[in-house]
């Protein structure tokens, strides 16, 4: 490739990333202060930096951030999602690390022993104190003073278990339960010789490929009002166990959809674990209970917490499940941010909440990283022998299989219920439909090529985005792997950031900048397409980068010394060798974009609504039958390519 051409392409990529990622993120921070869009693009196009600064100085103030503490649905939305106790624990951790850092700067080197002792106990203490206080404060405060008490803002519930929920936080609870289930399953598939353990690993595809809005729909079909299981239980005289719209419902759906992230990361860590370590523990005199806590768990902590982090960001930013299943009285951050913009066009509030979401996730990420690095845990290295002999005790194997089957039966039942609803023709008060029909699927098929077909829209939006994302990813991954320029760190960050930004926050950022001239792209298909590219391209970048790094530069150098030009080398050597990684990444881009709801719902013109948004709206309107049929088609479109990526080995990263 000639030098000018390379420069031109680099400039184009940089401009694209700046326009659709850098500027929106900057703008969302600014709008959180100004309260209305800043016309960042206009000022930049005119080169009028002083004008921009004057405008900011004129308009910016802290009132939206101050409003966070004054507006009940804001701070409760935040605490309901994250929880006061985890927040206190993270703050305590940060405090401990900060104090140690200050000690290191002011006094001298920190003894390594302190480093391990300081963080964890302080963290647990803060966590415990907040939980205790949150649960017990209503007993301690006289009834008439309760509504004025400051604890009322943290945990207003009347029942003690309700207060516990509020103190622990929804996403944290989902993360804990998902990590628990995922940990059990990972151990079962990686360390026991239970029958069908390869099948169990494969079955993890199903919850991973199930779009969250379909999970919400399936829950309604299964356990909501008039759901199949609900009808069965009512027929047996057991009453209704779940409300269709409740915290528990949302928690169950998220837990059973997101736990496979933990299975992926933890099973990978277990596979790589060095068998001789656990043997050394045994010979040195440690019974299994002791070595589990002192050797195995600390060694698995990096994998376990990485999986937990993925569950947390999914749960925290998951607009679909939370907006469909959370009851009205339970504000939650991501939904409140959406309501601020879509409902009342409150730019300041929506931007402030979006900034807060991104900051929260970055803080959690930083805590996870420093916890793993400073907490006395060691990342399991790749030279392991596969963890040694598998556990073969029959009753343990049977127990593990039963647990895995029980966990996996939930997503399977989800899909089964949705399929049944989509096929039902007549369904009165009976437990099962009395007649079945394929007419809904026929309807989808006959509408497929009409102008307003949601499926056609999906393809029209996703496929060009896919092409663009793959081309961009190829260039970016190649630059990341081969370049030594300082700017590659920036590029690296730019391709990781979209992973952690909740869709709603990103949509708020995009609308803030493309709402008016000079680039009035809001409510055009172009913006949706570009948003897909920016937010989904990281899949392709990461997976291509992984293959490129394995490849090493020597083959390309070999080709060049044989006289091949740069582009010939790319076409004949590099691309053929990284094709599996690139394909896996491309498929991940495809299925992830097909699932998107938040960004599409907020930025897409109704004429272009894809299948995901179509299903989401049908669910909102309560039309579960059409939604189920479309949902099943969508699931098929996602599941088949997903299984393909799994075979290509592209899901190992857990992203």
């Amino acid at each position, binding site marked *: 490739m000639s030098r000018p051409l390379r420069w031109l392409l680099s400039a184009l990529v940089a401009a694209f990333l700046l326009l659709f990622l850098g500027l929106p993120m900057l703008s969302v921070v600014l709008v959180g202060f100004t309260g209305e869009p800043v016309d960042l693009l206009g000022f930049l196009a005119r080169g009028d930096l002083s004008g921009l600064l004057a405008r900011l100085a004129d308009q910016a103030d802290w009132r939206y951030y101050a409003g966070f503490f004054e507006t009940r649905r804001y701070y409760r939305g935040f605490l309901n999602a994250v929880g006061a106790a985890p927040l206190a624990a993270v703050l305590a951790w940060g405090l401990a690390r900060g104090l140690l850092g200050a000690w290191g700067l002011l006094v001298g080197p920190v003894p390594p022993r302190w480093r391990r002792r300081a963080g*964890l106990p302080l963290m647990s203490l803060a966590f415990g104190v907040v939980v205790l206080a949150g649960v017990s404060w209503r007993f301690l405060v006289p009834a008439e003073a309760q509504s004025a008490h400051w604890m009322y803002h943290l945990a207003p519930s009347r029942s003690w278990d309700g207060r516990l929920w509020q103190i622990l936080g929804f996403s944290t609870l989902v993360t804990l339960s998902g990590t628990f289930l995922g940990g059990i399953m990972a151990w079962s598939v990686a360390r026991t010789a239970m029958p069908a353990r390869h099948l169990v690993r494969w079955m993890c595809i199903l919850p991973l490929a199930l779009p969250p809005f379909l999970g919400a729909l399936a829950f309604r079909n299964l356990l909501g009002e008039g759901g199949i299981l609900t009808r069965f239980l009512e027929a047996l005289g057991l009453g209704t166990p779940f409300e269709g719209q409740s915290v528990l419902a949302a928690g169950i759906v998220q837990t059973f959809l997101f736990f496979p992230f933990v299975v992926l990361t933890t099973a990978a860590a277990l596979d790589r674990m060095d068998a*001789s370590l656990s*043997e050394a523990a*045994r010979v040195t*005199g440690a019974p299994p209970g*002791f070595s589990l806590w002192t050797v195995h768990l600390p*060694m698995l902590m990096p994998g376990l917490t990485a999986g937990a982090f993925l569950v947390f960001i999914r749960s925290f930013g998951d607009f679909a499940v939370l907006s469909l299943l959370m009851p009205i009285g339970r504000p939650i951050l991501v939904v409140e941010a959406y309501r601020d913009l879509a409902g009342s066009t409150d730019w300041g509030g929506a931007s402030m909440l979006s900034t807060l979401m991104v900051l929260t996730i970055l803080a959690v990420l930083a805590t996870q990283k420093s916890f793993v690095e400073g907490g006395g845990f060691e990342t399991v290295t790749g030279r392991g022998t596969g963890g040694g002999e598998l556990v073969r005790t029959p009753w343990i194997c049977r127990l593990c299989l039963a647990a895995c089957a029980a966990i996996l039966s939930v997503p399977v039942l989800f899909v089964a219920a949705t399929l049944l609803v989509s096929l039902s023709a007549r369904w009165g008060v009976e437990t099962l439909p009395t007649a079945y029909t394929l007419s809904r699927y026929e309807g989808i098929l006959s509408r497929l090529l009409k102008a307003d077909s949601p499926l056609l829209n999906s393809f029209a939006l996703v496929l060009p985005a896919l092409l663009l994302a793959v081309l961009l990813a190829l260039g970016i991954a190649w630059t990341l792997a081969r370049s030594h320029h300082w700017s590659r760190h920036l590029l690296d960050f730019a391709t990781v950031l979209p992973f952690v930004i909740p869709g709603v926050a990103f949509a708020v950022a995009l609308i803030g900048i493309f709402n008016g001239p000079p680039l009035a792209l809001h409510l055009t298909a172009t913006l949706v397409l570009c948003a897909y590219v920016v937010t989904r391209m990281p899949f392709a970048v990461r997976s291509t980068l992984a293959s490129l790094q394995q490849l090493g530069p020597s083959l390309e150098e070999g080709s060049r010394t044989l006289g091949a030009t740069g582009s010939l080398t790319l076409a004949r050597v590099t691309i053929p060798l990284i094709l599996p990684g690139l394909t896996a990444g491309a498929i991940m881009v495809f299925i992830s974009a097909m699932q998107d709801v938040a960004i599409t719902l907020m930025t897409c013109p109704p004429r272009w609504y894809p299948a995901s948004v179509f299903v989401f709206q049908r669910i909102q309107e309560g039309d579960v039958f059409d939604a189920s049929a479309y949902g099943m088609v969508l699931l098929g479109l996602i599941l088949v390519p997903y299984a393909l990526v799994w075979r290509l080995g592209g899901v190992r990263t857990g992203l």
Partner: protein
Amino acid sequence: MSRVGIRNLVKRFGSTLAVDQVSLEVGEGEFFSLLGASGCGKTTTLRCVAGLETPSGGEILLDGQDVARVPAWDRDCGMVFQNYALFPHMTVADNVAYGLLARRYRRAGLLQRLGLLVRAVSACLPSEDLDRVREALATVELEGLEERRPGELSGGQQQRVALARALVTRPRVLLFDEPLGALDARLRVKMRQEIRRIQRRAGITTLYVTHDQEEALSVSDRIAVMNRGRVVQVGPPEELYLRPRTRFLADFIGLTNLFAACPEGPGRVRLLEGPVLPTTHAIPAQGTFSVAVRPESLRLLGAGEEAPGSFTGRVQLRMFMGGTIRLVVASGPLEWTLAVPLAGCAEKLGTGDEVRVGVEPEDLLVLEDSQ
């Protein structure tokens, strides 16, 4: 100090027989090596003693007691692994103290166990444990590295930490599984002397697995050479080297001249296509068998010098080895390797010179042809 007894040990992995009827007795305080090529079953035998593998048959006795049903953590062994198996998430001190904490944990009640778990996780060692850890680290000359992580140590230092971890609990038996395999040659020699010195001072019964014959010969009280899951010969290093009973062993240990031979009258053998030589060792009455002579037992004969057995040949190759010169001498179709002292007639010898070589009768070993 304990005695280790292995009686008719059998271990199968699926259809492959890894250890086949192995019986060994290791005395109190003895340094006993298992020597063999990779895949000969020596590591599996060691792991059966440690309790890391369940034998398919036979008995493992510690001080005369069968430990078949005793789990690894109750056998009171100390083991040094080939890759050291240091816990990467613990400091050196925590690694060494691990066995002490684990023993406390085994003896403790439920509540105390919880306390010990917290101790282990937050790395608060009881002061007496800390003293013993310091003592063990002093034994392996690693004072002052208590707070390092294994990743920050060199290979040799990691090796010493692993040794300290195995020693600190004063185990009944020390087990070494190719402990020096990952070190470079110079360090290997240093560490094996160190291991021997420490073992002798602590007086702990030791079972040492290695594929390196030099290592085994230099440190062991006794060696068992294994091949294909069976013990070929057991004995002190000198005996194995000087009096191998089988062709396999003669070939396996050291450099040797091995030839096929047949009987030629009392006390004399005829090498196939070679000379007739006398031997003091028992000769089978008929058939072919193997004979062996160590290169250093062969002697160059000067003019007029006589030996009970001798032959003439031509020098094919002359290699300077430091203290000795190695000569390859062709005599008919047979090639003999000689190791002759530097000082002497070999100095002037060059390729193509004709030499006369003498063999003492007791140096010509007659071997059983094991498969």
